Structure formats: structure tokens, C-alpha cells
């Protein structure tokens, strides 16, 4: 089956009604972003002295990193465990991770009071700070992702570099640069692939360490010394559902036939991964005795229940059902639930669980904060669409090989 698939540029129309809506949303976000840079964070956000972090950190950064986990889980599956059947998901997952981390970096940039000092962690080190580690790992990992994407760029442009007019003298040097890079990377790529996986496990977990220092300010339902482990396990569990989710949406949007065999295979792995995450979450709860807080009815306990039941237990059951794994719709629903679960977990961890001691009012994101977050997501989707049209990312059936594939089917082996 996989012999017939080959990454290719998609030949589709860029502008559709949906794309137009996304452009509007992106523009709306940019307006608020401009206000933030002109008048300061206080002008656009609902942040205050009690609530220093809002949805730009909880959703754009923390959830963004978690939902880009498809990049390193699929790299581990495809390159390290070396399952060739899953080759076709590697490039789309890599592209999502690359764009995702770029946007995480942007989200951090706009949230920093002194954004123009974003490079300071490179020279002022503080080894005790988990934020320092997250920052460094994200920076290095984003670079690794760009390097991993280079061969795709090379594949697209080697021999086809064609600058027009006064830039035409660049054609030759750029072409030979691409060739040199491509040749060098062919031999060394595994260094970057392993580094990418190691860096991901490091910062996915350290993202969980971030809120441990808030100590008594965190609700005990979430405050636990194993937060880093829970963050890592949930990131690993959400990786494949994110790949499935994207593949199904992309197939629908680009009018392609989804590779159900590959996606069901991925889905089969999600159940056990979610199970491990749930076991640690419940085990931790039992050991620390925090289930007593579930008897109180308040925002925290309700949000915790939604997070665990809707986001973990229900999809866990679904991913163990053969019917779900074989159905496009149910696989999509189950994957969406896992994504919602991890998203909720990050929001709960950074915002809902955080109850500052002297808050006069609780935090709710402002229109500006929501607009910027939605704008960011819109730009992300728009860029993804542009990238799959420019670069060979999504695998399409290769016409030359289809006949061979047919014989293979007749042979009965695959």
C-alpha cells in the first residue's frame, strides 16, 4: 500500500470562503496585537497583579507545545522505532510541529513585557529555573525542526531555483547551497531526529514543572510533584490523536481520501498511551488523597471532572473499540476529545488551578486576548495550507506505481 504513496505539492485553489474567514480573523487579531505593542499589555489583556499569566501562556504557549507533540511522537515512531508503514504521516506532522513551535515562540514574544529582550536567556543563565530550561529547549527544538524540514525544501527546489530579474544571479549559489545542505543532512539527519525527541521529552515535562513553584497558590487537584511526568505522558498521548485529527481535516479540506489503514494503526496505539496517563493521574490522586476535593462543588472540581471524564476516560474507551478505529467519524470524534482533554488540562493547570491569595476578582480573558489567540490559530492554518501547496508534504497516490500496487493486492500479502 505504502509503495503507492508519494509526497507531492497539492494543486488546489488557495482562496475559498473558509480561507477568507480565516484571513478576517487573523486581521482582527493583528489589530489587537498592534494595540498591545502601542499601549502595553494592560491595555489589551485582563491580566493584573494577581493574575500574571493568561490565555496567551495557557493556550498559545502551553497547549501549543502539547498539541505540537505529534512531531516528536511520530518521529519516534517513524524514524526511531522505524515503522515504515507510518512514513506518510511524518511530513505533515513535522510541518505542524514546525509551524506550531514558531507560533509558540511568537506567543511568548508578545506576552513578554520586554519582548525585545527575548534573547536574554541565551546569555543570562539560571539553571534553577524550569522556565529557563523550557525556553532553551524550545529555541533549540524549533531550530532542529527547521533543519528536519530542509530536505523537503531541497527536494522541491534543487534544480528549480528560479529567481527573476535582478536576483537571477542568486540562482546558482542558492541551488548549490541547497545541494550541499541536502548532502550533509542525509548523513547526519539522525542526530537531529534523536535530538528532537530528547529535547521534546525534556521541555514537555519541564512545562509541567513550571507551576510546581506556585506551591499553595495551586489547587491540590493539580498541584503535585509529578506534574512534569503527567505533562510528558499527556503530550505523548495527544501526539497521534493530533495527527489523526489533522489528517482527517486535511483530507476533507483538500478533497483527498484519508489513509484509514494508517490512521487506525495510529489510533490503536492511543488507547494504551492514554491508559498510562490516566493510571498515573488517578494513582497520584489516590496517593495524595486529593479525591476529597471532588466532594466540594466549585469551578475547580467541575473542571477537573470534565477534563478527566470527557478528555481521558471516554476517548480511552473509544480507542479500544474496533468499530471506532475503523470509522472515519468516530476516530475523528475520539481524537478531538483527547485534544480537548489536553487543552483543558493545560488551561486548568495554568489558570483554573491558580488561585492567588489576594485576588479581588477572578481572571477571564479579554476580547483582545481571545482575538489574538484566534488570530494566531487562523494564521497557522493559512500557513499550513500555503506550505502544502508549495512543498511536497502530503502524500498522494503515485500514478506510476498504482498498477504495481494492484498486483500486490491480488497477491494477497498486503
Amino acid at each position, binding site marked *: 500500500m505504502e509503495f503507492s504513496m508519494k509526497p507531492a505539492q497539492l494543486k488546489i485553489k488557495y482562496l475559498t470562503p473558509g480561507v477568507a474567514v480565516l484571513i478576517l480573523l487573523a486581521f482582527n487579531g493583528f489589530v489587537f496585537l498592534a494595540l498591545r505593542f502601542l499601549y502595553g499589555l494592560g491595555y489589551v489583556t485582563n491580566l493584573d*497583579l494577581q493574575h500574571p499569566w493568561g490565555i496567551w501562556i495557557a493556550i498559545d504557549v502551553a497547549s501549543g507545545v502539547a498539541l505540537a507533540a505529534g512531531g516528536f511522537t511520530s518521529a519516534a515512531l517513524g*524514524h526511531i522505532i*522505524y515503522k515504515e508503514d507510518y512514513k506518510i504521516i511524518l511530513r505533515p506532522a513535522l510541518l505542524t510541529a514546525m509551524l506550531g513551535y514558531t507560533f509558540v515562540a511568537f506567543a511568548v514574544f508578545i506576552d513578554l513585557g520586554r519582548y525585545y*529582550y527575548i534573547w*536574554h*536567556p541565551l546569555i543570562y543563565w539560571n539553571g*534553577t529555573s524550569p522556565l529557563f530550561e523550557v525556553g532553551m529547549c524550545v529555541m533549540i527544538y524549533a531550530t532542529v525542526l527547521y533543519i528536519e524540514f530542509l530536505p523537503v525544501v531541497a527536494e522541491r527546489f534543487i534544480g528549480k531555483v528560479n529567481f527573476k530579474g535582478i536576483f537571477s544571479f542568486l540562482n546558482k549559489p542558492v541551488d548549490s547551497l541547497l545541494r550541499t545542505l541536502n548532502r550533509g543532512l542525509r548523513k547526519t*539527519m539522525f542526530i537531529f531526529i534523536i535530538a528532537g525527541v530528547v529535547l521534546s521529552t525534556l521541555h514537555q515535562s519541564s512545562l509541567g514543572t*513550571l507551576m510546581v513553584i506556585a506551591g499553595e497558590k495551586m489547587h491540590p487537584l493539580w498541584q503535585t510533584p509529578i506534574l512534569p511526568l503527567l505533562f510528558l505522558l499527556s503530550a505523548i498521548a495527544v501526539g497521534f490523536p493530533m495527527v489523526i485529527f489533522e489528517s482527517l481535516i486535511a483530507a476533507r479540506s483538500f478533497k483527498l481520501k484519508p489513509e484509514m489503514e494508517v490512521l487506525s494503526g495510529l489510533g490503536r496505539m492511543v488507547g494504551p498511551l492514554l491508559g498510562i496517563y490516566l493510571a498515573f493521574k488517578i494513582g497520584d490522586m489516590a496517593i495524595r488523597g486529593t479525591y476529597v476535593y471532588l466532594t466540594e462543588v466549585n469551578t475547580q472540581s467541575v473542571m477537573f471532572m470534565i477534563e478527566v471524564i470527557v478528555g481521558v476516560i471516554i476517548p480511552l474507551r473509544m480507542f479500544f473499540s474496533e468499530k471506532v478505529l475503523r470509522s472515519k467519524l468516530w476516530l475523528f470524534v475520539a481524537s478531538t476529545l483527547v485534544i480537548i482533554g489536553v487543552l483543558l488540562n493545560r488551561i486548568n493547570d495554568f489558570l483554573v488551578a491558580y488561585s492567588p491569595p489576594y485576588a479581588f476578582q477572578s481572571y477571564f480573558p479579554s476580547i483582545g486576548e481571545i482575538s489574538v489567540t484566534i488570530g494566531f490559530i487562523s494564521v497557522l492554518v493559512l500557513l499550513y495550507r500555503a506550505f502544502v501547496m508549495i512543498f511536497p508534504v502530503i502524500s498522494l497516490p503515485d500514478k506510476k506505481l498504482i498498477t504495481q500496487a494492484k498486483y500486490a493486492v491480488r497477491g494477497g500479502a498486503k
Partner: protein
Amino acid sequence: MATQNRRDFLKTATFLSASALSIPTTHAKASEPEALNENRMGVLVDTTVCIGCRNCEAACKEAHNLPMETSFNINNRDIFKLKRRPDETSLTVVNEYPNPKNKLLPTDVKVQCMHCDHPACVSACIVGAFTKHKNGAVTWDGSKCIGCRYCMVACPFQIPAFEYNKAIQPRIMKCDFCFERQSENKLPACVEICPTEALTFGKRKDLLEIARDRIKRRPERYINYIYGEHEVGGTSWLYLAGQKFSNLDFPVLGTEPAPGVTESIQHGIFAYFIPPIALYALLGGVMWINRRKNSEEEK
């Protein structure tokens, strides 16, 4: 990727592990905080003596060149109707609470940075912009700060304030224990101006003795507790009170240093970079074995 052969893999892997082994030595020096100075200073706040005159608030604003709004009037006692917190324009504030022992003598509590012995802000700051000094002061360095506000998340007393309404160079504002004045051998501005000697400046260890002595002499006046002696591993500012501290809006905190288990987790994950390198080697091994298996199958 598929074209990469085994020899390349081995060649590069050998080079890589050789260079990886040389990394740990350069990063091995763990950033152990300087040992706490035995003679570090502190302030003992006796809330039973404070009369809520708020001269300290005015002196603090003057010493730090902070804006004095036209509405700022230390004689206006209506301000006590609301509980206030230190913010970007007032590094210290006084709040008033009813006194169950004597209705005519309310309890006034001055609030400012506690200058922890093991500060969460120092541990958390991404660029190390906070410093715990020999004299006990915890100060912020504006030339390093990137404005991420993680110190505000970390602080157990919710003290650091941020200038949200500045588009350029917003600062983290908090009491700096009058670090500059102290280096000129002057008292902190609030201590100097306090008319009732509710604030006592001295070596922390001496202050603890004074506090214990006061409790011993006047057990009817004080509850037998010095807030800040053990909270989050001890603070430079210490408080005495005639009623329970939780009634005075002091957070109930443990005796573990404020950074809590965070530093142990960090040092566990990064113990001389061994766990990441071990993981790297493990993954490399898995990759190599699986590739070999795969290429053998193809043959």
C-alpha cells in the same frame, strides 16, 4: 533518510558521543546559591505597636521616586475600609484589621516584600534577574529582566508588581529593602520614619531574640508565634501580632523553602546532563537496531 547507510550512522554516532562526553564538564558547576550570611539584616514588625499612620508609605514613595498622587493623604483613614496590596506605585501599604481584644485599638499591618531566605523569585527567574544579597535584601535587576512575570507566579506572598500599562521597559516593582540606602549606611526609609518604633531594624538573629523576649515579657499582648521565622524557610522580615496571623491576611505556608521541590526536579532531570544523554544514547541504540533489522529483511 532511507538512503543513509549503517556506516554513516556509526561514524557520526561515534563522533557525537565523543563530543557529548565533553559537554558535562563545562556545565557541571551547578548554580548553588551562596550560603546565607549569618549576619544578614531584617526588620521586626510589631503589629501591636503600629498605629497606621502610614508615614512609612510616604517615606517609601519618596525614597524610590514613586508618583505621589494628589489623592495620596496619609491622614485619610477611610482608606482602611478597603484592603490594599503593594503595587507598581506603592511598594508598601498598611492595612487595618479589627482587634478582638480591644475594639478601640485596631491592628495595623504593614505589607511589603518579606525578603525570603530562599526566595522563589530568585529560583524561578528565567534570566536570574533577582539576587539575594548578603545583607538579606532581595533585589531586581532591570537590565536582565525580560518581563515574563514568572516571579509573580512563583512568589508565595504575591508581592512582585508589574507595570502593565507601559509599552516599553515595564518594570517589576517591589520593596528592595532600601538596598541603596543601606549601602550608604542609612536605615530603610520606612524604619527611619516610623514614629512608634513598630519597625525594628537589625540582624535577623538578634531580632528573633528580641521577638521571643517580647512574647515572654508580655504573653497577654502577643500570641506565641513569630511569622517569618520558619515560613517558606524563613524571611528577613518578621512579624509579631496579638491575634492569629491568618486573621490578618497572612498566607498559611509551610516551612519548606519557597522553591519547593522545583529545584530538586530540575536537578534530577539535569543531573550533570546524564539523563538526557542517556536517553539520547538509548534512542540512538533503538534506531540503530531497528534500521539493521530492516535492512537485513530487505536483503
